Each structure stands twice: as structure tokens, then as C-alpha cells.
């Protein structure tokens, strides 16, 4: 697996740190407890395309949103998390 970092170009996977699924969104502070519970604990865990956060810790230190297949490990797309954020909530869904 190699990730095409928008800032640094294609880099080996060892330079990146995996955080987890990018789809869950942090609920508003006053959202019901169930919404916070689901955000922290419940995961789609699909066999197939998966949106996830990777940190380019051994490079530019940017957070990335990577779309990757969990069955073939193919990387389909990479964006900066800040761009994803700018596109608004749920843009990646």
C-alpha cells in the first residue's frame, strides 16, 4: 500500500498513521447521549470501499481522508482532511 499525499506525492505506508473511519461525525455537544455513543463506538465496518483518516506523521503531518477498499487494499482517492471539512459535513458519504 502506498498513499498519494496531496502535499508530498506517493509515499510508503510506513510514513502514515491510521486513525480509523472518517465517516462518523462528532455530534454537537448538546446532542443526545446516543449520538455521542454512536460516534465513539459504532462503526459501519464495510467489506469494500471505506473512508478513513490517515496522518502523514512521517511527512507533512497533514491529516488525509483516504478512500480505500478493505477487500483489495486498493486506494481509490486521497484528499486533505481540511478540504474535506471545507466541503461541508458528510461530503465524503
Amino acid at each position, binding site marked *: *500500500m502506498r498513499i498519494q499525499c496531496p502535499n508530498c506525492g506517493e509515499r*510508503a*505506508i*510506513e510514513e502514515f498513521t*491510521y*486513525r*480509523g*473511519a472518517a465517516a462518523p461525525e462528532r455530534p454537537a455537544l448538546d446532542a443526545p447521549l*446516543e449520538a455521542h*455513543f*454512536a460516534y*465513539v*463506538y*459504532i*462503526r*459501519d*465496518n464495510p*467489506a469494500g470501499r*471505506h473512508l*478513513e483518516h490517515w496522518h502523514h506523521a512521517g511527512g507533512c503531518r497533514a491529516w488525509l481522508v483516504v478512500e*480505500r477498499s*478493505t*477487500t*483489495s*487494499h486498493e486506494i481509490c482517492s486521497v484528499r486533505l482532511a481540511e478540504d474535506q471539512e471545507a466541503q461541508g459535513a458528510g461530503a465524503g458519504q
Partner: protein
Amino acid sequence: MKYSLFTLAAQALKGHRGWPRAWRRPEPKPAYDVVIVGGGGHGLATAYYLAKRHGLAGGRGGRGPSIAVLEKSWLGSGNIGRNTTIVRSNYLLDGNERFYELSLRLWEGLSLELNYNVMFSPRGVLNLFHTDAQRDAAIRRGNAMLLNGADAVLLDREGVRRYAPMVDLDNGRFPVLGGLFQPRAGTARHDAVAWGYARAADRLGVDIIENCEVTGFDIRAGRIHGLETTRGAIRAEKVGLAVAGHTSALARLAGLELPIESHILQAFVTEGLKPFIDTVVTYGAGHFYISQSDKGGLVFGGDLDGYNSYARRGNLPMVEHVMEIGATMIPRLKRLRVLRSWGGIMDMTMDGSPIIDKTPITGLYLNGGWCYGGFKATPASGLSFAHLIAEDEPHEAARAFTLSRFASGHLLDEAGTGAQPNLH
């Protein structure tokens, strides 16, 4: 056929050509009292204990077997046949330790119970430590084990040298200070565990149906009525899920959302050697565990690759990492050739501990979230899952493994790393 010295001698005279199949190949029946989904260690063990301890096989007034195990592939094709076979009960938290200690006790009598040699070998498991803080943690863990009726011995450097002379005690960066040793822990033959439970369950009347994938559930008014499979619909009063790495996918078909991620774990085996390591040793300055199989190959592994995966194969960086750590702990490994490596899919929960519980759907029960440590759990998992399904009450030893603990905050987080499955 009961295996014994007598049957062995009789078969030897016939050139070993007369051994019967270890289990039947039945066609699925239209209905069962209990269907277990997943013919791995846990599913087969559950079926066995349901039949043995709860008298459910041959139920319905003797009108045939009423328990089935449905396996989508061949029996033992999942993690039960892919793991590094370490069996231990060296957990820190009470909710875990009492369960794994029950499991270890069941391992001790398993070959006799099943009339099948599962090659359980209590050769001891030695966890090395390298700092004062790690030693304190090891002492605390050892005490927790003793309080739960398990065994634990604290070893100093000389003790480590005696049990594991191949370990480099003085490596420049992480000199070994000592180790926590569990003498009753060890290894077992993984395939034999699946085959032994399958054969024993079959002899009690359980139908084991291979190449039968569950593709849907018949759920009406909040109650399970049956399953759809690639070999037709099957009605069932109760259904137990035990599909390890595929728990999320299967549970989703029943409308359940779970606190689970699927991750890949790799394992490795070297060319065969003369006896070299007669215990199980784990490194404390990196994640690495190693033992020697009875055929002579060194069996070892390390961390998860660390990202969600259903691919059953990992990437090279983790291979390199595991080799590096292994060579730091035992420099002599550098001269060996690795023959095979493979991967299995782990159902990692958000706190690193398993789930054995009812679900919101009446008659549907869940066994999963075994992470990378479910082989040792096989006997106790089967026993307590069978208890839950038969009695509708959790088994005493598995009370902590609830599905609701994530919402209520009663987590069982051994590593203390929080809701980050790749760190457990």
C-alpha cells in the same frame, strides 16, 4: 467410532484403510431448534456443549437432531486454522481473567473430553519485561492472576536465562530485566481443536453443514424465525452467531450495528529446526511472540497491520517490522528462512474484549469480538455461549462480555487505549 488403543491396533492391522469419516456430511434439514452460524472453533464448541451439557441434540422427543452448525466454507478455514495457537490466562481485569482461567481449565481436560488429541501442551508462556515500570505492571498482573485462581511466577534475569536461553538479555537498547511466567499456559494444535469439537458434536447428533453461507435472516415482530442460506431457507427457534472477523457484515443483515472493526493479523512459520524453544516467549519492547511447533518450525507473529481489512493478507511493512523485533529479541533468528506467512481477519472491538450476549432480537444471540486472542477462549466461549442460548442467562464466567457495556461505560479495556481498535 470411539478412538482408543484397541481401535488403533485394529486399524493398524487393516493398513489404516478402514477409518470412518470423523463427522457426517448431512443435508440441511428444513428446521432446527438451534442453528449456530460459523464453523470455526467457537461455533463448533458451542454446538458441542449445547448437545453435551444442555441435552439439546436429538431433542423434540428423539425426532432427530435439532442443532446445526452452518459454515460458509470448509470446516476450520477461518481463524481457528490460522492462529499462532497460544493458550494462556494472564489477563489483568477480573471480568476477563475468570473467563480465561475457566478456559485454561477446560483445555487441561479437552483431549479426554473430546476423545481427540488436541495436543494441548502446557509448555508455559513467558512475557519479558525491560523496565522498572514494566516489572511493576507484571507484578500487578501476576497478583491479579493469582487472585483469580491462575498461576504466575515472577522471574529475574537468571530465571529468564533458564527458561529461554536463546533470548538476548543484554541487547543494547532494551536489556531484559525479567519476565512473568505462566507455567500452565502453552499451545495446542489449532486444526485438531476444530476437528475434535466437530467430531464430538457430530457424535452427539449435531448436523455440521459445510459450504452453506448464511445470506439473510427471517425476523418478524422482533423475533428470529429462521435463516436464508445458499442451500435454502432453514427455520430455527434460536440462532447463535459465531463468525469471528465477519461479525459486522452478518449482524448488519439482522439490522444490528456493532462496536467492531475488522483488522488483519499476520503470522509466520520458519523451516523446521531441532528443538530450540520449548516454551512460548513474548517480547516486552515491541509486540512479538514465538513458539516452536511439534514439526520443528518456529511459529511467530506481532501486531495487527493496523488498518481495516477483510483481505486475509497483509502488507510487507508489518512483515519487516515483525522480523526486526524478532531478531532483536533472538538474534539467531536472522539465520533462518521463513517458509510461509498468512493472514486472518480479526473482529476487533472498541475495548479489545469479546461479546457474548443476547441481541435486541429475541432468539438471536451474539458471540464475537475475539480480537487476536480468541483461540485460547475456544472452550470457555463455547461453554458460555451454549449456556446463554440454552438458559437465556449469561454464564457466570462471561457476565462482563455484554453488548451494552459500551453504552453503559463498563468497558473491559485491558490495554487502556480507548476506542481505537488497532491499539488493543
